[in-house]
């Protein structure tokens, strides 16, 4: 768990070693430093939600940022992942939590393909009808039919104890380590997928679908695969949200506001960027904390919570517009400019290796 395998740099031949090194360093830092600090609040209320929202952002980014299909239903697929994991773990013998989470991701991917089918015929904003249908139908169905939550009131599900291969991880540090492991592995896999011909096809579809079709890219397959991969990642993020972050969750927790939250992660972080998901998630989790601290410092303990909530809304809305105007490519671009040399972990296409550039 300490870090990714050392020869990672050799496994990524097309990207400069410094980027791979930076990835290893980032994961190692995330794996070691919080344990040295050892504050449960930091794990439970800050780092775990940041990691999970990063994973959800990665899922949405694949669909919207890379494949260009706008979705307003991310939370629905998180809900499917969470409830599928819960039921598989509960009802299928032999499925411990980790395999159940992966299986839940596959169930979510299946529904992603189902709700992605209209994308074969419908383009642009009209497509939000499909993901919004998922957004309103899924939580309704999950709370309407008691089977999904094993008959509990209003569809609440409770996480089973978190164990992995005999280790008891049911404490803040353990839950953090488990989340970090899952998110790190999935991010690496997604990164490689985006760097493969599949990912190139997505970007071609995003930039101009007609041109992509003329180049021989099967549009339907590319779009549906994007829906599947995106929903797989969102489903796993939803399962983690339920089982390593909240502990108990109800379908109403995966409402439209959650979908918007994930949309903000990828806009603020950067559309079509992997690192941006982590930056955006950190921003989305930390901004409310910071705002209430600032509010508390100015107004003292008598601060009206309703006023604070509304002020947060205004600041949040203004920040979104500010970022869109000032830096449409998000926090990831800001970080690039702040760094003395390019350290991008993704978009290797912008700085192709010299040999490739010479051949073009």
């Amino acid at each position: 768990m300490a870090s990714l395998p050392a020869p990672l740099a050799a496994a990524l031949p097309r990207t400069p070693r410094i980027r791979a090194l930076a990835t290893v360093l980032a994961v190692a830092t995330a794996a070691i430093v919080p344990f040295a600090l050892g504050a449960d609040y930091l794990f439970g209320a800050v780092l775990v939600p940041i990691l999970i929202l990063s994973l959800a952002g990665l899922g949405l980014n694949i669909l919207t940022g890379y494949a260009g299909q706008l979705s307003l239903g991310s939370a629905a697929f998180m809900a499917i992942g969470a409830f599928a994991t819960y039921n598989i773990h509960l009802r299928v013998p032999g499925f411990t939590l980790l395999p159940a989470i992966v299986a839940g991701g596959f169930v979510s991917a299946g529904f992603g393909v189902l709700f992605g089918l209209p994308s074969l015929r419908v383009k642009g904003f009209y497509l939000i009808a499909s993901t919004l249908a998922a957004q309103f139908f899924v939580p309704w169905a999950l709370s309407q039919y008691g089977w999904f939550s094993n008959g509990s009131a209003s569809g609440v599900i409770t996480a089973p104890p978190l164990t992995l291969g005999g280790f008891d991880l049911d404490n803040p540090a353990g839950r953090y380590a488990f989340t970090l492991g899952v998110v790190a592995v999935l991010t690496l896999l997604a990164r490689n997928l985006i760097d493969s011909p599949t990912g190139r096809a997505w970007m071609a579809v995003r930039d101009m679908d007609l041109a992509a079709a003329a180049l021989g890219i099967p549009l339907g397959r590319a779009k549906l695969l994007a829906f599947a991969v995106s929903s797989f990642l969102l489903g796993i993020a939803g399962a983690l949200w339920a089982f390593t972050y909240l502990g108990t969750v109800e379908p109403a927790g995966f409402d439209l506001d959650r979908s918007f939250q994930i949309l903000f992660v990828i806009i603020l972080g950067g559309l079509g960027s992997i690192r941006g998901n982590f930056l955006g998630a950190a921003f989305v989790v930390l901004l409310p904390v910071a705002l209430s601290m600032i509010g508390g410092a100015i107004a003292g303990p008598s601060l009206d919570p309703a006023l604070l909530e509304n002020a947060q809304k205004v600041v949040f809305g203004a920040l979104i517009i500010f970022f869109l105007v000032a830096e449409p490519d998000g926090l990831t671009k800001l970080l690039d400019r702040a760094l003395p040399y390019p350290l991008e972990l993704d978009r290797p296409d912008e700085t192709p290796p010299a040999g490739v550039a010479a051949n073009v």
Partner: protein
Amino acid sequence: MQFFLEVLVAGALSGVMYALVAIGFVLIYRASGVFNFAQGSMILFAALTFVNLVERGVPFWLAFGATLLLLIAAAFAIERFVLRPLSNGSVITLFLATLGLSYIFEGLSQIAWGAQVHALDLGISDDPVSVAGLSLSSFDIAATAIAGSLVVVLALVTGKTNLGLSLRAVAADPLAALSIGIRLDRVTVIAWSLAGFVALVAGLVWGARSGVQFSLSLIVLKALPVLIIGGFTSIGGVIVAGVLVGAGENLAAIYLGPTIGNGVEGWFAYILALVFLMARPTGLFGQRTWARI
């Protein structure tokens, strides 16, 4: 049969109220290609401002005018600080900017006017009346009349005047419109002001029916399927779609609800919209778009 017809017509009439919300979207989409998610929170803002002015003793028409002036001022601010800097942005960027706008509108209106529910009396009674043997609500009929006359006025303004022509020119090709001397900024402000006016009317009608409260901004979610079925570019289309959605939703709630569970109306309209989209990918009356490589 009598009951079926009453459910159908009552649904269709309330669907006109959805269309009232959706018209605001169409105005802005036609003039600037922006999908304005903030339309719902503009309704909340307009209704809250109006009702608070009236409660402080301002006469009806003065409050109406003052609220309208505020909305026009907002249109100027939005054009200057949001749309102009983003004029080269993609449609997704602009959509997300309006999502930010909706947060600002919601937050500001509640900071300014509080979160309590206000009753709004427009002097329209809500009694059952008998029309052609069907028992209907007089309020629904009045709301339909308001929406209908608004549609006629807007259809004339955008269809028969020079202003309407420049709105369409800007939507079709902003650069070409600029080069023949159309003021892009002015047209944008006018479109957003018109949408603000529609938001005010919709806010008053909805506020009179269900109270002026935060949930007004959620009407946007009811208007979206209407907009999708009608097509983003047609004012008449959203009226037809509103009637379809309202009637379908009411029928589903009454006849499907007992079998598959309550709350069907939360998602039914979206499934209906999907069915329509599979047949007509740009809505019933939406413009088909052509692309060239």
